[in-house]
């Protein structure tokens, strides 16, 4: 017994090192292997609060560009409204009992990351504002990512510039589906894989979100085709997509709250269980 104590005292630093190394390696592996539920995330009061303070200052430097972007978006929406056949009538909601199928929470990116293979953003709205994991995040130009973790007032987003992100997307004119991934290299480009050879595609075609995912509504802009490669083994196209969004410069974003999502997910789970 005495010898055991002696051993522990003698090697206390080494044992402490091994213990802490075990903890940190476990955290690392856990963050790489699971889609969600990371223990350490920036959606907490400490880092969220600090990032919000920093962002409050940075915001003043970008006021002009941010205003221009919002004015441009307003102009686009106005032109949609004015060019309708009857400008006086309000659009009929595509729903029953006045429940909108999609709802939007407005939010702001308070921390942006784009230099590592797995990028996450931090937003300044959380569970108190109704944000839940797996909601889609878009801005006026296109998609941004999917909500990962939430705390009371902050949430983290898996950016589309993240190797773990995989989003259903399609070619706008031909409706051929594929998966949108990122190879971790260039922040302006993402890859669309598993597009069948049948698809008639050309450089410059628009890529939008597909209807198969319940996270994003259909037909949200993503980018344009900039390079097409054929994979000789799998007979699928690998397409390089130039993003509409500048992921290094994000301001206000919209979180999409889909009313149908729970129903669809439950239904699909039922199907799987049988």
């Amino acid at each position, binding site marked *: 017994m005495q010898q055991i104590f002696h051993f522990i005292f003698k090697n206390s630093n080494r044992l*402490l090192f091994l213990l*802490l190394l075990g903890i*940190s390696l476990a955290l690392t*592996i856990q*963050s790489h292997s699971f889609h969600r539920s990371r223990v350490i995330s*920036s959606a907490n009061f400490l880092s969220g609060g*600090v990032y919000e303070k920093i962002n409050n200052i940075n915001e003043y430097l970008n006021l002009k560009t941010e205003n221009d972007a919002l004015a441009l978006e307003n102009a686009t929406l106005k032109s949609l409204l004015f060019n309708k056949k009857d400008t006086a009538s309000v659009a009929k909601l595509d729903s029953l009992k006045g429940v909108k199928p999609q709802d939007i929470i407005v939010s702001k990116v308070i921390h942006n990351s*784009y230099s590592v293979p*797995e990028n996450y953003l931090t937003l300044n709205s959380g569970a108190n504002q109704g944000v839940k994991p797996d909601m889609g995040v878009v801005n006026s130009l296109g998609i941004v990512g999917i909500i990962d973790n939430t705390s009371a007032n902050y949430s983290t987003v898996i950016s589309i510039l993240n190797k773990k992100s995989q989003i259903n997307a399609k070619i706008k004119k031909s409706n051929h589906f594929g998966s949108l991934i990122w190879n971790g290299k260039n922040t302006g480009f993402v890859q669309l894989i598993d597009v069948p050879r049948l698809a008639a595609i050309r450089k410059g075609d628009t890529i939008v979100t597909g209807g198969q995912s319940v996270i994003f509504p259909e037909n949200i802009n993503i980018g344009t085709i900039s390079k097409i490669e054929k994979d000789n083994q799998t007979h699928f196209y690998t397409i390089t997509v130039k993003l509409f969004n500048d992921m290094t410069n994000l301001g206000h974003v919209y979180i999409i709250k889909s009313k149908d999502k729970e129903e669809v997910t439950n239904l699909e789970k039922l199907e799987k269980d049988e």
Partner: protein
Amino acid sequence: MNSTLLVNILRFILLLAVQVIVFNNMNFLGYISPFPYILFIILYPVNGNKTGLLLSSFLLGLIMDLFSNSGGVHATACLSLAYLRPYIFKFSFGLSYEYQTVKLNDVVTPERFSFILVAVLLHHLILFILEAFQFSIILDVLLRTLLSTVFTIILCVTIIYLIKPNKR
């Protein structure tokens, strides 16, 4: 002794704050980012409490992970650096390390520079390998490590010169 503790706590907070506010937002060419916050581990007193160093380095890394959403990558790298620090001392200072006359917070001599170089390289190598977590992009990781190491060392030496205590 008490003032050393105070200086270390202050250094811990200040370096972390500067790292999060300024250096985390620096991305040269999109992927070269400096991490001068490990100066805390490098400048920790040579004959200081080893357990304290291990615990504070782990905490330092964990807080960095908290801010950069990276799991436990920084914590692992910092902890390994803190544990291997005595061996790096022995490597770059030779015998004089044993007599505890080493003072890092001073003019940069070749020995001191080699110590900083090895320490930063080790930290960055562990950091970037764990961050990528796959072997297929190992060349990319090595390039990144090299470039970031150069960047971090330049900043570290600058900071050491800036906070060097005046001897007049």
